[in-house]
């Protein structure tokens, strides 16, 4: 019954394109404005984009599942900031990122738009997305290593068994 308008920005129509775009959007969603703008330095002049929506802060209602895998329920809300802009060439970039950082949302939308241009994507992937992803992975791995250090190594007291 509901109609869905195709306003995704256009280029990520293939499954492979969508997977790649999801990946860079997820990296951008976890980066601060300072981190993105520091990485964008040295990527040439950035285009003057037309803001189509936002950056604006709102809420996402987070849903869990009863029992972990059952019927969905509304757990509570989280803040999210979104932005949509258009490059002079007409590419539309979107961003939805947790929190209230409007600059980060604007920069993430900008990078999302530029990443859809295959001529620019290679440089941006190397200079922006890959280093941000590496930093995020390193942070996650550090937590995993600390957690692993608190893993209990059980041993059986053999004297008590006999």
């Amino acid at each position, binding site marked *: *019954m*509901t*109609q*869905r*308008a*195709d*306003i*995704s*920005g*256009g280029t990520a129509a293939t499954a492979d394109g969508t997977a790649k775009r999801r990946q860079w959007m997820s990296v951008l969603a976890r980066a601060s404005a300072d981190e993105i703008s520091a990485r964008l330095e040295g990527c040439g002049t950035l285009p003057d984009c*037309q*803001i*189509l*929506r936002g950056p*604006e802060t709102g809420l996402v209602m987070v849903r869990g599942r009863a029992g972990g895998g059952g019927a969905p329920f509304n757990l509570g809300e989280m803040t999210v900031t979104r932005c*949509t802009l*258009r490059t002079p060439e*007409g590419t*539309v970039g979107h961003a939805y990122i947790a929190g209230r950082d409007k600059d980060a949302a604007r920069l993430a939308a900008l990078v999302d738009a530029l990443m859809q241009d295959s001529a620019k994507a290679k440089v941006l992937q190397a200079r922006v997305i890959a280093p941000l992803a590496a930093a995020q992975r390193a942070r996650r791995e550090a937590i995993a290593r600390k957690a692993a250090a608190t893993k209990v190594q059980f041993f059986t007291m053999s004297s008590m068994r006999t």
Partner: protein
Amino acid sequence: MSDAIAIPGFADPVADSQRAFRAVLDAMARPGRIADLGEGLRAPAPLDPATAAVALMLADQETTVALDGALRDAAPWLSFHAGVTLVDDPTRAQFVIASICPDLGSLDAGTDEQPETSATLILQVPGFGAGPGYRLSGPGLENPAILHVQGLPDGFAAAWQANHARYPRGIDVILCVGNRVAALPRSVSVEQL
């Protein structure tokens, strides 16, 4: 397709929607009075700026909206900027945005317990000040007001009176032309001159 959203929404979503809300509130409180929404919003064809502003201001992610056939081209813009859920069936919509007046009796009139859940019709018409005249009376009007509207169907006054008779249930109508709005709350009685 991305051209559909190339037209921005409110430049200042908070201040602009408050201004639009104030104008619609005044129009509702004083049926027949024409309120000016001011310049500022570029509306996507075929919506008039007032129609677009009222839709952006009232509808959101939580509301269902039906667009009539003639206005269907505005669907991507509305769903992008207001986040609305578009439905095909106007009888199931909380906001019906139309350029041709639908059968008022078919829209959701709410319930006696919850009359506020009724549908609001945002009706884009060709003009005010010309066309058939209607005499409005009821709450908010010390003396009857006269409103001339182009584009309402023949027999509108009779259909309206049937809507009015269902009070507290019933449809409210916001008439939009260019940058201007007038309103017909369900409490008002309408008689064609």
